[in-house]
């Protein structure tokens, strides 16, 4: 099992969610986060004085999937979240050692 974490532009959330539902992902966790990558924030100007806002608002999506689903999930998020301009975000994948569905006590892949 893998945990896929995608940091994306907030306005792309709906498109990514719909695309993931289409390929059979059944749930996700979404968090509003702030951060920067190579984009290095944006600038605001007040009477000629520039302020650099380093931390840009982003959305983090977390999806727990089976190993077999990972390539499809990565391809789907990349396609749906892409604008082609700077600041589109990143995807991280990590190993998931256990999963439990609280209501039934199921464990492992059947809990996903």
């Amino acid at each position, binding site marked *: 099992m893998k945990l896929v974490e995608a940091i994306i*532009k*907030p*306005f792309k959330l*709906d498109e990514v969610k719909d695309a993931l539902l289409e390929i059979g992902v059944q749930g996700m966790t979404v968090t509003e986060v702030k951060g920067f990558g190579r984009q290095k924030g*944006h*600038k*605001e*100007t*007040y009477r000629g004085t520039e302020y650099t806002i380093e931390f840009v608002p982003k959305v983090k999506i977390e999806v727990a999937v089976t190993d077999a689903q990972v390539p499809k999930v990565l391809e789907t998020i990349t396609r749906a979240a892409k*604008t082609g301009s700077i600041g589109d975000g990143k995807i991280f994948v990590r190993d998931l050692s256990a999963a439990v569905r609280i209501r039934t006590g199921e464990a492992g892949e059947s809990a996903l």
Partner: protein
Amino acid sequence: MVSTVAWKQTAGLASMVGLVLWSTAAWAQEAVPTATGGIDSGDTAWMLAASALVTAMIIPGLALFYGGMVRSKNVLGTMMHSFLVLCVVSVVWALWGYSLAFAPDKGGVIGGLDWILLSGVGAAPHPVYAPTVPHVSFMIFQLLFAAFTPALIVGAFAERIRFSALVGFIVAWSMFVYAPLAHWMWGGGWLSRLGAVDFAGGTVVHLSAGASALACALVLGRRRGWRTDYMAPHNLPFVLVGTGLLWFGWFGFNGGSARGANGVAAGAIAATHLAAAASALAWMVIEWSHRGKPTVLGVASGAVAGMASVTAGAGFVGPMSAALLGATAGVLAYLAIVWKGKFGYDDTLDVVGLHGVGGFVGMLGVGLLASTSVNPAGPNGLLFGNSGQLGIQAVAVGVAVVFAFVGTYLILKVLDGMIELRVSPEEEATGLDLSQHNERAYS
């Protein structure tokens, strides 16, 4: 006469303060032009004050009314629309707008270029438009009407218009839609010759804003997330304060349209006030019974619809007729906004529902309720024995709606071929404040 009074007052001050002001008094005496024969100081004072009142309707009145209704990421962009419209239209009006609307008539259609750059528009009164005030004070009063109208329209495409597109739209709209319509109704054009009357802008201001707003909503399309995202007003206190300033300024808008400080002006203010109050109450009652609660946004919207409805006839109908008009507009505007949902267009801040419906009720209301006992210079309506006026008013309504809708639609289509009308999806999600202006309202 005027110069003597000014001289005496200033001279009185000078005797207290000193010789510096004495010299000012001497200057004032010389500077008063000789062509001020018919000028009445009371009328002039009222027209100048009325112009200031109408300015307050745009900024901060409409800026707050609209700014409070959008989401917090768009409040600066929306308030900027009101501010920008005032600035752009003011310059356009002085360059050629006033001339197109009010200069000597060309075939009943347009005003021509005689007064371009305000040449010939000075202290001497215009014998027809306003014979007792300086011509330039009539010009500035009309300028504010020309600015107020497109400032209403921007509510239709709030939260998604590209700023550069807005500037182009306002210049074109005030030239191709507002100026002809104002000429037809107020500049000696063909609608006024037909006998149609519009005291302060039922057709020229409110119906034209409503019809243009509909075209804007159709061409621009819905906002992203319409009906799925939470799009409630971000600051209802702003909306209420803005409504208060609109109400306050409307006394100048309608009262000043009497073009003097007289009984018609007083009647127009009484009519405006009662229509606003009756319409707010009517909206409240129908909303209370329909949805279970009387809301703040409801009474504010009702008051604005009521004032829009009394604008066409403020100087032609009595105060109780005005209250009736207001109550009718409050109910119809509420129904229009409920029905809007079924049509699926996104007139974001309900310009059609408030101003389109208000202008419609008001113009037909004149045909029914106008009375020469209120204003001998106006017509009688159907209920006062003149069956012909209602039909003429209906013609004016139809003309204003079709002309404003088609004109706006064409302007937007042409602009659309030149520049992007809407902000990009990402900019729209970020909000107009940051994407268009690099600023935010609340940090």
